[in-house]
């Protein structure tokens, strides 16, 4: 009997050991929250708390936060004007990922204070910083001075309104101040879109009168016509108003959210019209799409334009000027080596979001065509890296081309080489796949996705569907886009390997980018930007581990915030015109005195 008891005890021990060694099957897919998971979340909390602490400490009379924080001093980043005035700035268009981070952090922690912080900041902004015509004081050329709480222009005294791929967090804005948000979206179109001609200007005037019936304008014909060969004719009739896709993406996104919110289909129909012009202007043979669907009308004299360094768009299409050696294909619309992130990443993500949320199914087919064409013609692996071959959208190569003279696209004797393909491309490719129903339609794009992921050093996602991957769970990649892609693959397949590699990437992000209590681009970078996507990506991962439905979490769409304008150059003497990314966010801790 004693031997039997001993044997029984042995069996119980064996049973416990057996089941604890197979957590996946025995616990019905429950995910254990580990110390490493907590470590990542703790880093996000510390970053957010520091941003809130130092952001509010600078000026306690406002709920607005600076765009970026000096990680050595806790002070706001400052824009130095040519007159040497140093202005700490708050540009809420550049803080959208931080608002999404705050909302996500409340979701995963259950602590509403983060959500309330986001609402307080947005509420103050929407209540106090809306021009009477409806436009908000934000974007590329306007910001709030955190010393005076006055609006500041970085582009002369009366800088225009400009949004380029910023895709504000409208869901939260509607929640905070519906009236102001609706008014803003209506005026966004009034100020930027020309209803009779479909011209579009990235710049909108704060003087344009508000029009409550803006989307009730009569519909117009498509502006893109086809030539005898079935190729699109790009009209050269835009009077200085160039329809850049990065501005159009914001217009369309705003209109879709407004229609969804109010139930009025008119904004959505205008957004459909606008996106269709880009589609019609795409090259039907290659599938590659365009940055703009118009060229500018020549309005300047031949004498004024005789200087190639004078790149005013009134001298006509700037690619036609600088790349005229290539003939008629040389148009700004057709360039596939510059601004491609705006075309194939930002616009694509918006179209896929619209397809998913607002039932515009054909956008998935459009996007798949664009991406397949681009990858078929231009994607190349060079020395183990993902690259893009520069070309025009009909496939005409520009690789190796040396420009004879200075122009809008660069100095004379500039040689065009390969363009980097960053990890941002992972999400549009993957989301297109996940939103495509047919395996057959997905086969080509999946093959590219597999090759690109592998080349990024993340291992093999395996054959179509990704259900049998062989991932590199020790990958060194420390990138939020790769992380989000792996989380979305986990959601799609349920395969635990994707979650494991997402955790590895998350750990890498914290190890490589969390320094001095803030997330920074890397250890030596001075400023922590509020718009950086790392914290949102880490919280999306945390939410999945906790079993929070991804549909309930804030969604990543863009990371494009910037300020552009006149400033004092880093030499401390000359006036320059530059961007925050090149003037401020490039500074390292060694640049700080």
């Amino acid at each position, binding site marked *: 009997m004693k031997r039997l008891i001993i044997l029984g005890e042995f069996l119980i021990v*064996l049973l416990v050991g*057996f089941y604890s060694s197979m957590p996946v099957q025995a616990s019905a897919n429950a995910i254990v929250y580990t110390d490493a998971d907590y470590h990542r979340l703790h880093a996000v909390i510390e970053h957010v708390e520091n941003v809130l602490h130092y952001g509010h400490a600078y000026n306690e009379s406002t709920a607005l936060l600076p765009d970026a924080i000096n990680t050595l001093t806790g002070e706001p980043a400052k824009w130095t004007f040519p007159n040497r005035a140093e202005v700490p700035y708050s540009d809420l268009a550049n803080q959208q990922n931080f608002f999404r981070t705050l909302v996500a952090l409340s979701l995963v922690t259950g602590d509403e204070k983060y959500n309330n912080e986001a609402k307080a900041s947005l509420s103050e902004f929407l209540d106090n910083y809306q021009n009477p015509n409806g436009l908000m004081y934000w974007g590329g050329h306007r910001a709030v001075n955190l010393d005076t709480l006055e609006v500041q222009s970085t582009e002369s005294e009366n800088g225009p309104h400009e949004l380029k791929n910023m895709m504000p967090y409208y869901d939260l804005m509607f929640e905070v101040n519906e009236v102001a948000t609706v008014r803003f979206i209506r005026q966004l179109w009034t100020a930027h879109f020309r209803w009779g001609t479909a011209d579009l200007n990235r710049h909108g005037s704060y003087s344009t009168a508000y029009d409550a019936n803006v989307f009730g304008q009569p519909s117009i014909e498509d502006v893109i016509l086809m030539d005898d060969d079935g190729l699109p004719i790009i009209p050269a009739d835009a009077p200085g108003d160039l329809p850049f896709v990065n501005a159009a993406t914001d217009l369309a996104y705003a209109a879709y959210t407004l229609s969804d919110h109010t139930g009025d289909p008119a904004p959505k129909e205008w957004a459909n019209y606008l996106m269709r012009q880009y589609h019609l202007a795409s090259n039907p043979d290659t599938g590659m799409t365009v940055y703009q669907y118009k060229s500018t009308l020549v309005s300047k004299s031949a004498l004024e334009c005789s200087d190639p360094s004078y790149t005013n768009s009134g001298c006509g299409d700037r690619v036609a000027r600088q790349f005229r*050696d290539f003939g008629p294909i040389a148009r700004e619309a057709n360039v596939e080596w510059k601004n491609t992130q705006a075309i194939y990443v930002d616009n694509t993500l918006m179209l896929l979001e619209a397809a998913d949320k607002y039932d515009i199914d054909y956008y998935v087919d459009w996007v798949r065509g664009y991406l397949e064409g681009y990858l078929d013609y231009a994607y190349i692996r060079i020395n183990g890296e993902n690259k893009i071959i520069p070309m025009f959208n009909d496939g005409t190569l520009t690789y190796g081309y040396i420009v004879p*003279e200075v122009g809008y696209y660069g100095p004379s004797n500039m040689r065009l080489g390969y363009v980097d393909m960053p990890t941002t491309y992972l999400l549009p490719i993957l989301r297109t796949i996940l939103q495509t129903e047919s395996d057959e339609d997905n086969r080509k794009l999946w*093959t590219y996705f597999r090759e690109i992921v*592998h080349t990024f050093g993340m291992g093999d996602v395996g054959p179509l569907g990704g259900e*049998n991957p062989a991932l590199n769970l020790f990958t060194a990649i420390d990138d939020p886009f790769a992380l989000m892609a792996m989380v979305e693959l986990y959601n799609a397949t349920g395969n635990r390997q994707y979650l494991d590699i997402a955790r590895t990437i998350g750990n890498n992000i914290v190890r490589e980018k969390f320094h001095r209590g803030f997330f920074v681009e890397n250890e030596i970078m001075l400023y922590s930007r509020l718009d950086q996507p790392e914290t949102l990506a880490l919280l999306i991962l945390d939410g999945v581990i906790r079993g929070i439905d991804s549909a309930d979490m804030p969604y990543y769409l863009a990371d494009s915030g910037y300020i552009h304008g006149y400033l004092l150059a880093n030499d401390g003497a000359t006036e320059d015109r530059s961007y925050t990314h090149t003037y401020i966010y490039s500074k390292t801790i060694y640049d700080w005195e």
Partner: protein
Amino acid sequence: MKKSLLTVLLSGLIFMGIVACDYSSSTTGTNLPSGTNSTTSVTTLSPVEEEKAIYQLLVDAENLSGMSKWNNIKITSNIDLELPMTYQGVTITYSSRNPEIISDLGIVTQPNECWIESRKQDGVTPVPNLNDDWPVVVDVLMTYQGQERTAKLMFVVAPAEGFTCDKYKG
């Protein structure tokens, strides 16, 4: 009674052992064979493992076959590039976007004219010899047992001696 209880316990142990072995084999990581001996080793793998092994073999074919050796080298004569047509059982085929300059078999014929005649933005003033060399993309298809991988190669070919450069497109 004791004997029958022992029999039940032992049966349970044996059953658990079988289940545990099955669980282990279905969840442990795949041991991919290296590309160099994949021709023989893939035949012993499950279909999923075999697919992955072939994928790795195709990756190796791209990286190790020597097809990329002309990267960053300007080709200045009519030569056979000797592009590899096989690698460890992988069939490699090429499709040139300028077959008159580089054939699908990798034979180079230097063109008799420049790539681009360049002029200043006035459209009149020539800038000679700036863009004479031709970039040529060759699309690559690697296949093994019905599985495929694509790649691209970029070549730069100088025009033949005495070439012309008089077809301005601007």
